[in-house]
């Protein structure tokens, strides 16, 4: 068994170098396809992050009556927080609301007009963030029925429209990534098939001298894995070299979105290696198969 693996690895290595032109062509195709896949995957990840970010902005602000007692507010907060659709509840007192307003004006370098008023014009409120913006209507309805809630702004139609757009983009992104994946799959498998077909006579001779299927198949499978491994290494090298420029370029993007370059790079490495080696093996396997089954 060990000698069989050693034999297969040795034959794979020989096969790769003795057909250098074909192997390098396959590797180059592998690199380009993996880069294509990586590019679309990065775009898709960014798109998803952007969509999630947009949807997370959908929250509900319920204004409270000024005469609501502390225990009533407390009670409401606890009950709302317990709702399955709700991700978080924040109570904003009248003072807090005024402070936020002033900070906001200052940030925009505009005059604080509230200083001319004798009393705080703001009402207390609770701000509710949702687990899923599609649940907006349910939560909004519940809140309007609360006795201490003076009013809830209804932006249901806006939320619906935003969700329509984000859902469309999410589906379109997934479809495009899927199609790109299929294209990459077929091109890689076909390239490897060409490399195998170029050696049809070698396979024929092996069959005629009585080589078992395993002895014919595994060297080619290892060779396909080698092409995939090499292609993945080169593709990751290219991505690594480009990552500095890329991360500087996308810095603002990453700062706004809940996305870190580290986790992106790690996922990308897994995808590139998995796709490279996996498709290399798959391509060899199906290509050699056609010569084995008679």
């Amino acid at each position, binding site marked *: 068994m060990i000698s069989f693996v050693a034999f297969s690895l040795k034959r794979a290595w020989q096969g790769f170098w003795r057909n250098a032109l074909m192997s390098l062509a396959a590797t180059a195709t592998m690199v380009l396809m993996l880069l294509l896949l990586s590019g679309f995957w990065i775009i898709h990840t960014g798109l998803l992050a952007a969509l999630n970010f947009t949807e997370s902005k959908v929250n509900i602000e319920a204004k409270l009556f000024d005469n609501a007692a502390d225990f009533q507010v407390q009670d409401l907060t606890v009950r709302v927080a317990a709702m399955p659709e709700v991700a978080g509840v924040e109570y904003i007192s009248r003072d807090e609301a005024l402070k936020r307003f002033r900070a906001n004006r200052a940030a925009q370098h505009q005059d604080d007009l509230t200083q001319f008023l004798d009393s705080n014009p703001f009402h207390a409120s609770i701000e509710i963030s949702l687990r899923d913006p599609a649940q907006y209507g349910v939560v909004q309805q519940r809140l309007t029925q609360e006795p201490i809630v003076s009013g809830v702004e209804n932006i249901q139609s806006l939320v619906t429209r935003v969700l329509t757009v984000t859902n469309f983009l999410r589906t379109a992104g997934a479809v495009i990534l899927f199609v790109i994946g299929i294209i990459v799959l077929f091109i890689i498998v076909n390239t490897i098939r060409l490399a195998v077909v170029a050696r049809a006579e070698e396979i024929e*001779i092996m069959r*005629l*001298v009585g080589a*078992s299927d395993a002895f014919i198949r595994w060297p080619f499978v290892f060779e396909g894995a080698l092409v995939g491994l090499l292609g993945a290494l080169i593709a990751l090298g290219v991505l690594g070299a480009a990552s500095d420029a890329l991360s500087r370029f996308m810095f603002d993007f990453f700062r706004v979105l809940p996305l870190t370059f580290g986790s992106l790079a790690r996922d990308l490495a897994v995808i590139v290696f998995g796709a490279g080696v996996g498709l290399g093996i798959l391509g060899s396997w199906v290509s050699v198969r056609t010569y084995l089954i008679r």
Partner: protein
Amino acid sequence: MTLAPPESPVLTLRERLFGAPRVRVAAERAVLILHDVTKTYPNGKEALRDVDLVIPEGDFVFLVGPSGAGKSTLLKLLIRDELATRGDVILDGQDLARLSRRQVPKVRRKIGIVFQDFKLLPTKSVWENVAFALEVTGTPRRRIRPAVDRVLALVGLTAQAPQFPAQLSGGEQQRTAIARALVHDPRLIIADEPTGNLDPLISWEILQLLLRINELGVTVLMATHNADVVTALRKRVVALEEGRIIRDEVGGTYHRMD
């Protein structure tokens, strides 16, 4: 070379499960038995029809006939590239129709095949081409070297061992192919037009080599169009025409004598 008598009461488990073989064979006496073999291709073409052929151990047989007579189909049946539509093909006591896919390579190692176009690997030396047949069948390294050296000496190519096929003459290439066919120590050598690409002098050289191998006890089945060789040697001649055996005579000539 006749079929064994029908009284063989002891059935193996396999035979009890799958039925006794239609032909029971005296395996130690015949290398190859074809019994009522018919081969019809999926497109309806009948390449072989009711072929009966028994080749005893140590025989030297010429297979002759015009192109399209069924010679290639017959050879394909022997290496189990194709299965007979009807009838039995029994090689060294094994019914080829009953082989599992795993057993096919093992049976092929009992046959050495030589082709008109040599089928050598251009990127490997003579020595490596011969060793290749052993490597891809999982032979331990320590047994490969002496076996390859032995067959190369037998075909007279010891000096050419490190050369590549492109550096060899046609005759030397065919001798390399014969060495490769022999290296498994086969029961039967099948040569398909082995002299088809060679000039007459070299053809005789190859024939002499095949005869010598035959004298060493290896059965040889050679398909050929070379009338001079067949007629001169007066060996057993099996003539195929339109898928049938029309002549099978010992000491025969290429053409019918009458």
